């Protein structure tokens, strides 16, 4: 007997009765959730009390911000919806930074918060905060649920909203009495809280497609700007096929890295503030930009008035509100990047763009000799060396979760990501403290992958308490702390733009080796480049979480750099001679001053 006939033969079971708390977990299981990250408290206790009856693993965090980043890291590394749980009041407000982080990078996360009982709403009760009010501008949508019977439909709608269209975080605030109350519950019901409404017609019109094809076929110096949308849409294969046919080179945004293989000859790497000089020059020289799932952020464009002045522009994005927001475009296509690329490829003429590729190659000029990666081992430890070696030693296959600052840019420059979702990083909000908790989330999302945290000494200390979570959950994460004793990116700006006045950037840190050991984890220290390989190998071989304290040069800077708001062509180049690199030399840095 097949399942279908069995179902037909059996009378429909009467809807069972469930408590609101039980319905929360039942819907989560229906939505495919097997792990949540959270922290209990008074207003969410009924939900926690019901949890052991469901096949959902709960990861107890040390601070709710950690829960938010874990759910976010889980979603970024897997493409599935992450879930974080917290109580009312301070539990919920501690999520806020994590929610905003997910919002700015369009990451699908469902946040579930407990709320005081409905009779107490609006009375300033103990641990009451207007969380739907607080999170209104940093969620795609949020809901306050005060009745048990609304929990199922609202949670289902929450998942649908989080993952549909341009993804994003949502929050469902559920009062304690709604969790405690019981009502009829039909496990087969899939109804949403309200019907999905018709949205304006999206999609690729034949006219827009034809105009895009004409621009692409005619262009002599076309360039693809690949953004997060390429990864989010699962369009890596379609992008590779498009490039193979049209020969158009690819520059990536920070969150677009991995959407096109970094080791492909047509991958130029990251553009923008810390993009290589030849990449930004290619943007400025291009006669056509094909922007795919990116939003012309100010860190990418520099001065908008002088951005890509010779280029016609095609903008493909799922979100119509991004069209024309920062840059006026010639052809706009509001649609899924994957579908658009699949439609474009067969319509565009095959080309190799050899002259354009040769011109880009020639424009690299002396960049190679300026590249810190090419410099001889002087015995000193440079972050760029650490990242380059880490890439080589992990064969580029690790999921690298970075924090925010100099190390994040060095990672983007020197760790060559060939696969989507290999880099997890907070781009839009730039949230320090993101890396360790996000890596814990990535660990659950990708159990077979090697997961590395790359964090600075500053950002790591913001959420270092989650080392306890690694220990309690028996997780294997490798942690590279790029420790320069400064809040390095701010120090770099102080060096370049604030007369070298290092205000509030020198930072004293705990002994990270002892810190790891205090958590029952392994700690290693590396002070010379010759020690990098052994430490990385030891970390990879160890069963548990390993913290490596890389004591790198204190006053190293990320080059090249486009100063904030400057023209993309106005780069501060990497110094040809630097006292940091040339042992014993004591002369001045020779970088060109910012104009």
């Amino acid at each position, binding site marked *: 007997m097949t399942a279908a006939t069995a179902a037909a033969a059996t009378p429909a079971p009467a809807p069972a009765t469930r408590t609101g708390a039980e319905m929360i977990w039942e819907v989560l299981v229906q939505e495919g959730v097997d792990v949540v990250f959270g922290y209990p408290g008074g207003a969410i206790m009924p939900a926690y009390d019901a949890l052991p009856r469901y096949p959902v693993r709960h990861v107890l965090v040390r601070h709710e911000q950690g829960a938010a980043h874990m759910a976010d890291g889980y979603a970024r590394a897997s493409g599935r919806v992450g879930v974080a749980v917290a109580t009312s009041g301070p539990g919920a407000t501690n999520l806020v930074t994590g929610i905003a982080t997910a919002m700015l990078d369009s990451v699908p996360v469902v946040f579930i918060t407990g709320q005081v009982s409905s009779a107490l709403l609006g009375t300033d009760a103990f641990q009451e905060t207007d969380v*739907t*009010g607080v999170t*209104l*501008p940093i969620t*795609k*949508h949020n809901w*306050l649920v005060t009745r048990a019977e609304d929990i199922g439909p609202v949670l289902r709608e929450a998942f*649908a*909203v989080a993952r549909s269209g341009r993804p994003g975080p949502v929050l469902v605030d559920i009062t304690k009495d709604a969790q405690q109350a019981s009502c009829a519950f039909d496990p087969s019901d899939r*109804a*949403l809280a*309200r*019907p*999905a*409404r*018709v*949205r*304006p017609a999206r999609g690729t019109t034949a006219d827009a497609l034809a105009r895009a094809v004409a621009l692409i076929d005619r262009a002599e110096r076309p360039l693809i700007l690949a953004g997060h949308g390429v990864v989010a849409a699962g369009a890596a294969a379609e992008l590779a096929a498009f490039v193979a046919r049209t020969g158009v080179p690819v520059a990536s945004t920070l969150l677009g890295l991995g959407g096109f293989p970094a080791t492909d000859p047509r991958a130029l790497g990251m553009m923008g503030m810390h993009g290589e000089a030849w990449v930004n020059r290619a943007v400025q020289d291009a006669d056509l930009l094909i922007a795919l799932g990116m939003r012309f952020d100010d860190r990418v464009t520099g001065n908008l008035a002088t951005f890509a002045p010779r280029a016609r522009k095609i903008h493909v994005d799922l*979100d*119509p*509100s991004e*069209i*024309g*927001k920062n840059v*006026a475009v010639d052809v706009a296509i509001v649609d899924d990047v994957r579908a658009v690329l699949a439609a474009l490829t067969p319509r565009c003429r095959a080309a190799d763009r050899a002259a354009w590729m040769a011109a880009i190659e020639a424009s690299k000029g002396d960049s190679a000799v300026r590249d810190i990666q090419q410099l001889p081992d002087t015995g000193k430890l440079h972050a760029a060396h650490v990242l380059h070696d880490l890439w080589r030693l992990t064969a580029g296959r690790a999921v690298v979760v970075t924090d925010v600052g100099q190390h994040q840019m060095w990672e983007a420059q020197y760790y060559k990501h060939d696969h989507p979702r290999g880099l997890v990083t907070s781009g839009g909000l730039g949230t320090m403290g993101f890396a360790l908790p996000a890596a814990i989330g990535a660990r659950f999302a990708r159990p077979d992958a090697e997961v590395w945290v790359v964090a600075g000494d500053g950002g790591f200390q913001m959420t270092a308490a989650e080392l306890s979570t690694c220990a309690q959950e028996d997780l294997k994460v490798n942690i590279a702390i790029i420790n320069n004793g400064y809040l390095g990116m701010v120090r770099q700006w102080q060096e370049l733009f604030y007369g070298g006045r290092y205000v509030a950037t020198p930072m004293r840190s705990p002994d990270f080796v002892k810190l790891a050991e205090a958590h029952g984890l392994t700690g290693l220290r590396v002070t010379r480049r010759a020690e990098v390989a052994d430490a990385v190998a030891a970390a990879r071989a160890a069963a548990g979480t390993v913290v490596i304290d890389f004591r790198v040069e204190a006053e190293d800077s990320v080059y090249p750099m486009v100063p904030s708001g400057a023209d993309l062509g106005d780069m501060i180049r990497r110094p040809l001679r630097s006292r940091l690199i040339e042992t014993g030399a004591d002369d001045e840095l020779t970088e060109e001053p910012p104009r």
Partner: protein
Amino acid sequence: MTAPGTPRLRTLVATVEDVPGVLNRVASLFRRRNYNIASLTVGASEVPGLSRLTVVVSCDDATAARLEANLWKLVDVVAVDELAAADVVERDLALIKVRADRASRAAVVQAAELFAARVVDVAPDELIIELAAPRQRIDDLRAVLEPFGVVAMVRTGAVAMARVGVGADLQPPRAAHGA
């Protein structure tokens, strides 16, 4: 014909779910995206459970297109229409309290009659005049009354709909389908 880049007042009508917080969400969008609202009104539509919201905003064509796109991103928004100035019936309701003593009352009432406005309350020294009209006519009435001494004014802000048989009407809110 104004250039596309020139800011001008334009009227958008959004059909929204009648749920708690919807006005807050729309207002928050305008604040956060730095739009310059002239007026924002909300009230019942012909369909139970749906409200209509009229927004008058000053912006250029590109900004208006993004505003419409941003409104569509709100989950509670069911439909958005920008009404072309020529095709719209628009009404703003004003109550204007104006000084009117024995010497000036006849002149004040005459001014109101010129605008087809109604006197809805009378006291020895003051009147309240009511006018439902397009925004500009209310501005004009106010200017005419100003020399007599305008004590107070309240306005509802504009509500609007497309003219009968002209252009596209408001999108039918029932253009909804199940998930």
